[in-house]
């Protein structure tokens, strides 16, 4: 059985194709969304999900979230005496989802389809694939998030649709895709995006706006900077959500027992967020231009991702497109459901027999060349595109190059992905070297063929016309990627980590939530929460199942009365 997984910046989800429909799978706490957060407690147990997210408010040094931003980089974080890379952390989240599916379906699950932002570059995609392998999955395919949302949207009622635009603004990434459906063929016309634009950036914007006005200011001094940062961002997230429905709210947090707050109103926030809203334009424009579709001919705008709930974003979208966006699709669920549809397609489920999906490559692929400028000098390091962005994949294109010096002995092609004219600003995927016969400059003709297939595998073939010498390179592994043995070793390492048993997950999560609530309140409320925590811990020690479940209900209801903030 293949499952579809949405590995998001803020929240992750997993879904199956079953009974001719895509279904979301609940986790141990009964939620379909699992926050992408990891925390390590004092006993060395690793918490994943809601518990980790709550624990981040109380133990920020032992917790981490939004690590999707660091996929494809070498950045690590230190949790409780151990270093974790972004891949490791994603793997832990995926492991937790795997356990959830196996509990739900009652059978072992080995294969998965994982979603990535459409604008993830090659490095980031490989990192995601490795995270899946570390979690014990055989990653059958990586699918773009807006394409997945389009699948969920389209397969739902199987109608023919004129081109529609998927606007996916998640926690950390922004993607735009223009998709067309006809007779069961789902065709992506263009994709574009911004990998560093998402709800988290709006949080930071709000923090920057509010920070100078926080009262009492003295309370901010005594707190370590990274702890302060984490607390402020968490408070910003809450305040931002409240601003969705209210014109103004209090930005409040508790530091060292002191409640610090400042009022913030929606208008001021929107004015401060204007540069971020401006950044939404460029990917939309690029995808419209590349697909050669006018705004008026789009049939609808489909919103995906939690951040599209923000009024400022909704207003910007309405202004951009001259119409109201479509909200039938659940912005948080669509991507996982779409991934499940893709899983069903791969399995060739009977219900999906007629569906075919064709995607595009969102980045331009090419090599570095040198050109003569006006003064007759050579400028090196210029990008020569071979496969233009938003070409339908699979695709194979060939381009012709010559030598620049007399008696040159070889040509080395650097292979790059990106849109900048100078290759230093693009992502380097690899290089390939081919020997050439000694000739005057410009007399040797070399053909370079790029072949890009549906799963994002790039193959480069270089042929020298005169001698017939060929070289081939398959961009599978970058030079700094780990080998299979290393991956196996890391998987074993992760398997050694301690986790709470599944049955305990609810208790652990509830305790974490209670402790966060304790820190977030002061005075009488805090005292009351403290008392409830003590009662619950006592019930846990009794080890009596009925007492424990009763105590759980009590604590939850008590918290719901006092602590109205929720993450999901």
């Amino acid at each position, binding site marked *: 059985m293949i499952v579809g997984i949405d590995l998001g910046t803020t929240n992750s989800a997993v879904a199956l194709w079953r009974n001719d429909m895509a279904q979301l799978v609940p986790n141990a706490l009964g939620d379909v969304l699992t926050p992408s957060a990891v925390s390590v407690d004092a006993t060395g147990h690793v918490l994943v999900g809601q518990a980790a997210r709550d624990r981040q408010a109380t133990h920020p040094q032992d917790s981490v979230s939004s690590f999707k931003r660091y996929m494809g980089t070498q950045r690590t974080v230190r949790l409780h005496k151990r270093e974790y890379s972004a891949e490791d952390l994603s793997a832990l989240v995926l492991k937790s989802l795997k356990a959830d599916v196996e509990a739900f379906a009652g059978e072992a699950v080995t294969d998965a389809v994982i979603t990535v932002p459409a604008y993830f570059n090659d490095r980031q995609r490989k990192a995601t694939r490795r995270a899946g392998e570390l979690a014990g999955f055989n990653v059958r395919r990586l699918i773009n998030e807006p394409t997945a949302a389009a699948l969920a949207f389209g397969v739902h009622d199987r109608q023919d649709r004129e081109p529609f635009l998927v606007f996916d603004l998640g926690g950390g990434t922004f993607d735009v895709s223009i998709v067309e459906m006809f007779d069961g063929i789902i065709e992506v016309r263009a994709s574009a995006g911004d990998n560093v634009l998402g709800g988290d950036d709006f949080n930071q914007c709000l923090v920057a706006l509010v920070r100078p006005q926080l009262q009492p200011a003295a309370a901010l001094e005594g707190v370590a900077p990274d702890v302060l940062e984490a607390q402020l961002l968490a408070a910003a997230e809450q305040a931002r959500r409240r601003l969705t429905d209210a014109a103004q709210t209090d930005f409040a947090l508790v530091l060292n027992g002191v409640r610090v707050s400042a009022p913030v109103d929606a208008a001021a926030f929107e004015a401060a967020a204007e540069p971020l809203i401006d950044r939404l334009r460029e990917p939309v424009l690029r995808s419209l231009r590349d697909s050669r579709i006018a705004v008026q001919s789009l049939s609808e705008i489909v919103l995906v991702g939690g951040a599209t709930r923000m009024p400022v974003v909704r207003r910007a979208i309405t202004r951009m497109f*001259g119409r109201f966006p479509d909200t039938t699709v659940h912005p948080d669920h669509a991507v996982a459901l779409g991934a499940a549809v893709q899983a069903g397609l791969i399995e060739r489920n009977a219900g999906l027999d007629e569906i075919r999906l064709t995607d595009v490559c969102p980045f331009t692929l090419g090599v570095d060349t040198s050109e003569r400028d006006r003064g007759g000098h050579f400028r090196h390091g210029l990008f020569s595109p071979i496969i233009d962005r938003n070409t*339908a994949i699979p695709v194979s294109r060939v381009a012709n190059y010559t030598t620049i010096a007399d008696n040159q002995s070889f040509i080395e092609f650097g292979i790059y992905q990106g849109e900048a004219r100078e290759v230093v600003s693009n992502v380097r995927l690899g290089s390939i070297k081919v020997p050439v016969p000694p000739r005057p400059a410009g007399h040797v003709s070399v053909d370079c063929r790029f072949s890009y297939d*549906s799963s994002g595998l790039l193959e480069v073939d270089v042929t020298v016309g005169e001698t017939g010498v060929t070289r081939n390179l398959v961009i599978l592994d970058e030079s700094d990627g780990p080998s299979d043995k290393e991956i196996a070793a890391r998987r074993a390492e992760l398997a050694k980590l301690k986790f709470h048993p599944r049955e305990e997950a609810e208790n652990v999560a509830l305790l974490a939530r209670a402790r966060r609530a304790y820190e977030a309140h002061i005075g009488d409320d805090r005292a009351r929460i403290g008392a409830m925590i003590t009662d619950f811990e006592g019930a846990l020690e009794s080890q009596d199942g009925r007492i424990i479940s009763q105590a759980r209900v009590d604590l939850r209801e008590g918290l719901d009365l006092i602590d109205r903030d929720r993450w999901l």
Partner: protein
Amino acid sequence: MTPTAAWRLLGIDPTADASAIRRAYAARLRAMDVDADRDGFADLRDARDLALQLAAEGTLDPEPADEAAPAAPEGEQVAIPVPQTGFGWTGALAGTGDPALSLSPPDGALHPAALAPDVRPAADAPGDVLPLPDPADLLACADKAGGWYVARHGLAAEEARADRALHALLFPRGEDDDREQLMTAEEEEQAQAALAAVIADVRGGDIDQQARGEIWIADILAHGWPRSDPLLAPAADAFGWRARAGLVDTPPAVDYVNQRLAARDFRTAVERKDHQLHGAWKQLRKPTRTGQSRALWWEGRKIDELLGIIRRDYPELEQQLDWHRVALWDARGQKPIRSYTWIFIAIVVVQLLSAIGRMAGPSGDASSPASLAEAVDTPQMKADIGDVLVKSLGSAMAYDEFARDHGGLQRILSTNWRMQDSSGNFTDSYARVMDRLLRDRYVLMAHELGGDHLLALQRLRLKIGRALRKDQNWAACNDLYRTGLLPDPALLPDDLAALQRQQMGALLLSVDTDPAPQNRKGGTYKIPGAIVQATLDGSGLPLDRVQAVYQGGGEPRDVCLVDTAMLAAILDAAPAVRGPLIDKI
């Protein structure tokens, strides 16, 4: 991908029904494995796109009807271009126009009054440049741009749109030359207000309108530079153009604006005292004294670097430097001092030699300056020139006689020999180069003298043309007719080469060929229809190909056949007809 192949791939008959095309594509796509058959998938996509395009255009018939070739017109005049002589300097050096100094906006950017190619104006009124989203905004624009526009042009308020105001400010007379005149302070203020109003309007529309407005503003600023200089920064900030610098898909106008802004930023940076190239900048800006021919430099490497950066990236900054000082810097590598030194040394040596000669005796023969010139006539040179006379002109004349009777020609040959000797630069042997020179000279002389000489030349050319045609040497035949010059004798059969040699010798050695003949000018001429008919018959080609050759095009083979036939026809014609034409062909 041809239309028939497209319909065949899709498996349907040509139709204008878009959904039928897409259904066919869907069926084909379902039947294939795209990863296994990558090229097939690409072909299928191309086929579908082409079919949809044809369906949208309404043209379904792929084959154009063949036209019957008409008969040659009788008595009609046909214009044919005269072959220009190929060698010689035409008077224009390639690339003397320094592109940096002209700095015209990039090609493809239309006149600001027109829109970018992918934009359609909402209204078709002439001079309408930007359709605004809401008529109510027109008056709002007028207020922000200021009533000055209305007052100055006496227009009704509805006409006072900010975009027109901006356009009028940047191009007061509506011509491209306006951009050389910078704006006054008052005009600049009004322009800023107009620009702000236009930007505000543009941002209020939907994203397509924003894109169109952005391109319009970029175009108008690019075309209006340097007059639009103060407006570049506000526009770039409003649209975020600087962030898009250096991407492959930036529009050329935005690129242009970015480059001008980058130049301005560089200038600001380099004028700061702590910039590493500041010293070089100050040096190059210092004005020179009149008549100054040398300058002192320090930190030469930094000056080199600065000039390199300016010339490569910011060409307009070069105008801010003192031109004379830059010229002095560029010239310093040529070291004119050196040649003076050699001349000085040469004079000293000559004086020494003559002094030694005078000391040695009154009849020193190798020491007087006059005999220096004669001594340069080396035996080697005489032998080579004699060789040329034999091989090219078929004459066994002695060198001295040749030098005496044909001084002009001898001077040319000996000068060329000396040039070759000193620089050793001839790619071909001296004999071959001289042969080519003499052949060309013969052709020009024959044309200049006219009469029997010209007739003899043309008859020779016809014989050569026929020989080359028989050999099927189309390239050489094409050259013969297109350049009007004689080919290398190595390409000809022996008897023809001998004939060519003999005719050349006859003319060049019998007629005084000073001064040198002029290059022939190009142009067109008319030939009567009878000749055309004879040409058609003689060449055996259809009329359209003959016409292509007449117009200066055509394949070498066609040129050979047509021109041989035409030359034969002209030479066979009556002298009255032949007369005016024989000079031109």
